[in-house]
């Protein structure tokens, strides 16, 4: 049975060109780029080439790019690093209620150390109001961190607008672009950001690699200490093959550009139209238009998300409830909660996120399985039974 992978916001399969680049690096280019001899220098050249690719995509200088071990590390360096470097200037951070835990949890750790954190609300579509950002700024604000696109519902934030506010108030501005990098335009000057996080495994690159853009002049401290690598902001022998794979993946995304996004959008809309037509009691989560092309988050009332996932899995379909990173926990989605979705509804949320391997055929197969799955689960559901009784009463 062919599998239909609809969890591309959680992680993506490495694409063949990237796997090839990795294999080539593993075979022939194993050197430590800090070393002087040929093998080390070859690795150095490959590393710097990947940096150039990223600099071009971000519209920045090569020296402003720090390769990390992933999105979580990039986010942590940004939040903890900027906070610690500016301890004397203030103790206030502005972020949102819908950030990934890689932002929320370092913020919570800082709160324990006496920092004040404002978690901005969002509207019913998951959108932050730039005016809220401006209103929250105090004389002690040293960092604003607001994600570019949300991983659960796909809503795209008005980063450029917030960037102008941050700049006007001379406050360091970070965006978690883990979900948007390679998909939306991430020119750092257009966005007006001082820091930006990205992760390789979300764009068909290898796991265990990420990057942090750090605008020249930004005050920041490392969270780990060791060798001189990555301007001492990220010490440790560089994962050169991984970085080269990330570079290749980013290059290919950039080359494909908006065409692939348009294709994903079509698939997503086909699926959503099909769901609406075939499954009663569904509700779309996320912004109707300002949303990642590949993200579809739907509430199926009267059922629970995990049971949908397990049932879809029997049909060879892989999807997620809420974000993959929280699927181990029982908490209802903090993102949907912030959007005003009550927990009894948000438990029925299903996230289907498209990627380059998905086809129209996939959508049609999902549309065949999903209504049956939901119907079966509803047939077990005591609250659906109660609902039906009310209807007929």
């Amino acid at each position: 049975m062919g599998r239909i992978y609809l969890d591309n916001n959680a992680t993506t399969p490495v694409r063949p060109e990237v796997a090839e680049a990795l294999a080539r690096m593993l075979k022939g280019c194993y050197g430590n780029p800090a070393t002087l001899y040929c093998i080390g220098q070859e690795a150095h050249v490959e590393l710097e080439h990947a940096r150039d690719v990223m600099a071009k995509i971000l519209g920045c200088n090569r020296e402003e790019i720090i390769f990390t071990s992933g999105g979580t590390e990039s986010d942590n360096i940004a939040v903890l690093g900027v906070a610690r470097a500016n301890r004397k200037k203030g103790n206030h951070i502005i972020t949102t209620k819908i950030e990934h835990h890689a932002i929320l949890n370092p913020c919570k750790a800082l709160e324990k150390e006496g920092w004040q954190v404002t978690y901005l609300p969002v509207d019913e579509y998951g959108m932050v109001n730039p005016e809220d950002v401006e209103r929250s700024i105090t004389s002690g604000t040293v960092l604003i961190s607001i994600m570019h696109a949300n991983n659960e519902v796909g809503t795209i934030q008005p980063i450029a607008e917030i960037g102008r506010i941050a700049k006007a108030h001379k406050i360091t501005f970070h965006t978690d672009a883990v979900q948007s990098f390679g998909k939306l335009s991430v020119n750092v000057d257009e966005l007006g950001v001082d820091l930006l996080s990205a992760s390789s495994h979300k764009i068909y690159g290898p796991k265990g690699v990420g990057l942090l853009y750090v605008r020249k002049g930004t005050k920041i401290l490392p969270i780990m200490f060791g060798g001189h690598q990555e301007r001492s902001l990220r010490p440790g022998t560089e994962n050169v093959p991984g970085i080269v794979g990330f570079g290749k993946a980013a290059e290919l995304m950039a080359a494909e550009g908006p065409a692939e996004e348009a294709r994903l959008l079509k698939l997503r809309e086909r699926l959503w139209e099909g769901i609406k037509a075939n499954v009663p009691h569904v509700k779309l989560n996320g912004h109707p238009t300002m949303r990642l092309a590949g993200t579809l988050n739907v509430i199926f009332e009267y059922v629970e998300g995990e049971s949908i996932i397990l049932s879809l899995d029997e049909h060879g379909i892989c999807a997620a409830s809420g974000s993959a990173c929280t699927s181990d926990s029982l908490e209802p989605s903090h993102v949907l909660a912030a959007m005003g979705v009550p927990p009894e509804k948000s438990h029925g949320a299903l996230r289907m996120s498209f990627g380059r391997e998905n086809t129209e055929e996939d959508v049609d197969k999902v549309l065949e399985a999903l209504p049956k799955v939901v119907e079966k689960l509803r047939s077990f559901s005591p609250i659906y039974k109660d609902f039906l009784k009310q209807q007929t009463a």
Partner: protein
Amino acid sequence: MAYSEKVMDHFRNPRNVGEMKDADGVGKVGNPVCGDIMELYIKVKDETIVDAKFQTLGCGAAIATSSMVTEMVKGQKLEDALKISNSMVAEALGGLPSQKMHCSVLAEEALQSAISDYRKKKGE
């Protein structure tokens, strides 16, 4: 997190699923805010559970524990059924992930609640 084969079997093919219109006892536990609701129905004859059914909204573990507990109680004396603990249900399913143990607690509670409903109805 990973479910055992047994859990997945009971999730895929839940035993005794459905409403029991003429139940002698009904246990309702959980709440929609937590995402788990279980309704357990029992039919009792001579202090023995002769049939059991359930309806559950919830995760894979919630459905599997509901299914398992109905299997476990059928043919049991009420006093023996009351001795069925959550860990016995979990064990019968080949274990549950730690963050899902609360589902087995729900199953135990649903059973207790159905039996006490039966006793109440009987006027005990």
